[in-house]
């Protein structure tokens, strides 16, 4: 972990106020992304990883739907304290985001070039011509062949992989310090997935841009990230160095996920299947440890009291489990 | 084939269970109906209109055709709550009879066009070659603005209540047929229908016993909108002199009289106008409520034309 993280999330809670009452898909999440680092956030669907990512940019409708608690420190400020206007200045400029399905994420009625130009002109005082030239440069940077021609085309004329490269080009337009990639390869073919991940890694190295990579795929994390944060039901259950966590996972949930990881040469598209049971809905959160109902190690203590996220003595990995010591083999 | 003799693919084990389910559904429907404001207000208004129509002769006690030269163009008073018209006829009485006429024509048109539209829609939806012919004709009819086609046909047939009902029915059949057809197309694709076809059930039996029930909900909803729309077009036609012939009190005729005296006898316009709005409002609220209850996902596709 680097000394001075670029993004530091402290006890973030995101509440959704729905007709059926309040739910909290992000419930006290703390995590950090260091400078130049790629951090993976992993978990089953419904674990709050995507909601955490979108909360960083405050993308949820704060007038009708959502409210936030806690702290999101970025560049010396708390993003949750910014005005809507200041927040717009951060989005797409200092922090960019790309999404799962690149086709529906691009506006079908505008050209590729136009959509990049829009971002540039939102945040930089440059003219149309200059922006158009920069857009072509960006497309080239993301490895799109014949960028001059592509810039004049519409999203539906491109292949899935090309579209995700376009999304990345849009995200890179203002040279952000942090890229949030929300399941960027889930909707793509396996071979294309690898190319996109390579591109993200390459940009991370060349531009020194930090990346927060949301995925349900531990294989992707192992290949791409330096650190991993495992989430379950709105909480972080384990976080640490990728090598440490993969070598010796401490949370029963992480262990379950590891078993579910297909071999790296296999088809990575399948969802995490092998953790027994399923994620309960947000309005039926179990008492005590949230993973207890699905956990082989669970006892009465687990079912009544929530463990804290803490590091074991002599370890950098932080884990939220009463039995972590036993699992690590340092106690019995 | 007793096993196939149910409306749903999952045949119920016993009649008892089916009956219980039916009763439960009915109870649930009643509860949702009461909770639906549009449906409640709409049906209350319809009940009011029905009572007024049925008891028209007793409500004012006057003759809708009774001339009274002394009391021409009298403003509303205690003797004539809605005032009188240019022949001294009591406007309240005429509005009551006019509302009754509108409701009768509206109902007749909604009923007839629902029936014809149902038959056309079902057969068009189920039989491919018929679909081509029937729906071409329906598209052609649908391409006319409703009022225009009705005026042209009435011009040829000549004004009378019967002709008006025939014309409006022709005008509104396509909107019903379209909705029934699209429902039939969906039902047809279901496996149990295909299975029954394979088992040799007759075409008519499949259509009427198994496809028709699925089309009923959208049909009823659309029918109630046709009711409202037919009342508007009837009034417009009578207003133009191409609908119900003159001395007969209909809301359109009353408004047409009102137009002549709009300068000095505003009541001749206001009361028939409000009555028309009330009838249409009642049917629209009722239709809206029904749609929410029966057919929550349906959009108002065929409604406006």
């Amino acid at each position: 972990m680097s000394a001075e993280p670029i993004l530091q999330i402290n006890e973030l809670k995101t509440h959704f106020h729905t007709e059926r009452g309040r739910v909290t898909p992000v419930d006290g999440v703390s995590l950090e992304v260091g400078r130049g680092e790629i951090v993976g956030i992993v978990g089953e669907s419904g674990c709050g990883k995507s909601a955490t990512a979108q909360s960083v940019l405050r993308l949820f409708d704060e007038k009708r739907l959502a409210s936030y608690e806690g702290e999101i420190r970025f560049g010396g400020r708390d993003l949750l304290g910014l005005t809507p206007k200041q927040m717009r200045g951060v989005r797409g400029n200092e922090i960019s985001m790309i999404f799962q399905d690149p086709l529906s994420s691009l506006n079908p009625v505008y050209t590729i070039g136009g959509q990049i130009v829009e971002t540039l002109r939102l945040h930089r005082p440059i003219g149309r011509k200059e922006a158009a030239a920069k857009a072509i440069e960006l497309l080239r940077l993301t490895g799109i062949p014949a960028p001059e021609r592509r810039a004049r085309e519409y999203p539906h004329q491109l292949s899935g992989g090309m579209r995700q490269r376009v999304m990345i080009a849009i995200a890179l337009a203002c040279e952000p310090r942090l890229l949030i990639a929300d399941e960027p390869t889930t909707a793509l073919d396996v071979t294309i997935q690898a190319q996109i991940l390579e591109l993200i890694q390459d940009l991370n190295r060349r531009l020194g841009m930090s990346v927060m990579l949301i995925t349900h795929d531990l294989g992707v994390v192992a290949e791409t990230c330096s650190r991993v944060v495992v989430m379950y039901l709105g909480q972080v259950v384990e976080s640490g160095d990728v090598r440490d966590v993969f070598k010796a996972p401490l949370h029963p949930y992480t262990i379950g996920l590891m078993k579910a990881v297909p071999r790296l040469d296999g088809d990575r598209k399948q969802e995490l299947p092998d953790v027994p049971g399923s994620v309960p809905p947000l309005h039926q959160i179990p008492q005590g440890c949230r993973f207890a109902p699905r956990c082989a190690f669970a006892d009465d203590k687990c079912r009544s009291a929530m463990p804290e996220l803490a590091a074991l003595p002599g370890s950098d990995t932080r884990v939220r489990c009463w039995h972590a010591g036993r699992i690590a083999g340092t106690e019995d | 084939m007793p096993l196939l003799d149910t409306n749903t693919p999952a045949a119920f084990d016993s009649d008892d269970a089916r009956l219980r389910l039916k009763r439960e559904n009915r109870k649930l429907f009643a509860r949702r109906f009461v909770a639906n404001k549009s449906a409640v207000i709409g049906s209350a208004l319809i009940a009011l209109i029905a009572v007024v129509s049925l008891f028209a002769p007793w409500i004012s006690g006057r003759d809708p055709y009774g001339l009274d030269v002394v009391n021409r163009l009298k403003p509303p008073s205690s003797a004539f709550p809605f005032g009188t018209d240019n022949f001294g006829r009591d406007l309240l009485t005429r509005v009551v009879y006019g509302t009754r006429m509108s409701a009768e024509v509206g109902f007749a048109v909604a009923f007839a066009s629902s029936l014809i539209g149902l038959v056309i829609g079902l057969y068009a939806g189920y039989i491919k070659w018929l679909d081509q012919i029937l729906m071409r004709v329906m598209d052609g009819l649908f391409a006319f603005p409703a009022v225009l086609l009705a005026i042209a046909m009435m011009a040829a047939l000549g004004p009378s209540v019967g002709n008006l009902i025939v014309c409006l029915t022709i005008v509104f059949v396509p909107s019903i047929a379209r909705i029934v057809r699209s429902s039939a197309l969906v039902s047809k694709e279901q496996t149990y229908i295909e299975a029954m076809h394979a088992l040799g059930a007759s075409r008519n039996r499949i259509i009427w016993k198994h496809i028709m029930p699925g089309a009923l909900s959208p049909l009823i909803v659309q029918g109630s909108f046709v009711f409202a729309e037919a009342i508007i077009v009837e009034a417009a036609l009578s207003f133009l002199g191409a609908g119900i012939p003159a001395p007969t009190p209909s809301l359109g005729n009353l408004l047409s009289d009102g137009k002549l005296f709009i300068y000095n006898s505003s009541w001749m316009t206001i009361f028939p106008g409000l009555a028309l709005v009330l009838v249409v409002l009642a049917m629209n609220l009722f239709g809206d409520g029904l749609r929410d209850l029966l057919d929550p996902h349906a959009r108002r596709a065929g409604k406006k034309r």
Partner: protein
Amino acid sequence: MAFYIARRLLATIPVLFVLSVIVFLIIYLIPGDPAAVMLGDGASPETIETLREQMGLNLPLLPQYGRWIGHALQGDLGDSFFMRQPVRTALAEHLGPTLSLAVLAELVAIVIALPLGIRAASRRGELADKTLTGFSLFGITVPGFVLSMFTVLLFSVQLKWLPVSGYKPLSDGLWMHLKYLILPALSLGIVQASLLARVTRSSMLDVLNESFVKTALAKGVGERGIVYRHALRNALLPILTVIGGSFGTLIAGAAVIESIFNIPGMGQLLVNSVQRRDYAVIQGVVLFVAFAYVLVNLVVDLLYAIVDPRIRLK
């Protein structure tokens, strides 16, 4: 693109054919001999026979239709029996006022409906949204001609701001022209606006839930940019459909409104011809309006291609 246009053009041919057959057959709804009905009681058998000859009623059905549609396609819609002039001339004389009224009413509808629908969608549950709910019930409940009579009572009879009825052509000056058209156009337009506003709202809501709106938000686009630049253009297709479809409704509605305001348009021509049993004019007006209606919708379909590159580049 060319393929798309060709396909749309081809698809309108059967509709136009059925339309023309229906209009043609209207004359057969007349009980008895149309020629005798038109000439009235005192006509001699010779006069009736001459008119039958002129109208082609002596021919069998198919050749009769062929003759009629053949002429119609060349712009010859027959002669007005009452006015002693070609139907085409009568149509041309009455087209202007109706077109003015319909265009003005459409403008009223758009000016009211689009901002209201857009705002209701982007501020769900707030004032604009609630206004829209009430307004759309009002629009489907109050028929245009009743509304126009009520507006006449208020603005012309009570307040005396505007003339009760009549029409002045554009050549009398724009203000004069508008002064006489304001009330009819408002009454027609408001009813249309209620439908258009509802469609605008639901179409905008659909689009605002799409992923690319989230992308735009993540790029730092503000609320106005999201609504107007990103959502509106995508929401335009259903809106255009309703605008195109409403032209027919407006022209038909104009028929009724024109007779209230005594505007010498096609509606009045139609109503007068109904009273005169001038069937050639009735057929001519109906055929013309229905064709125009189908063609306007065709133009709308072609506009889709301009709005949406996915259709254009297919």
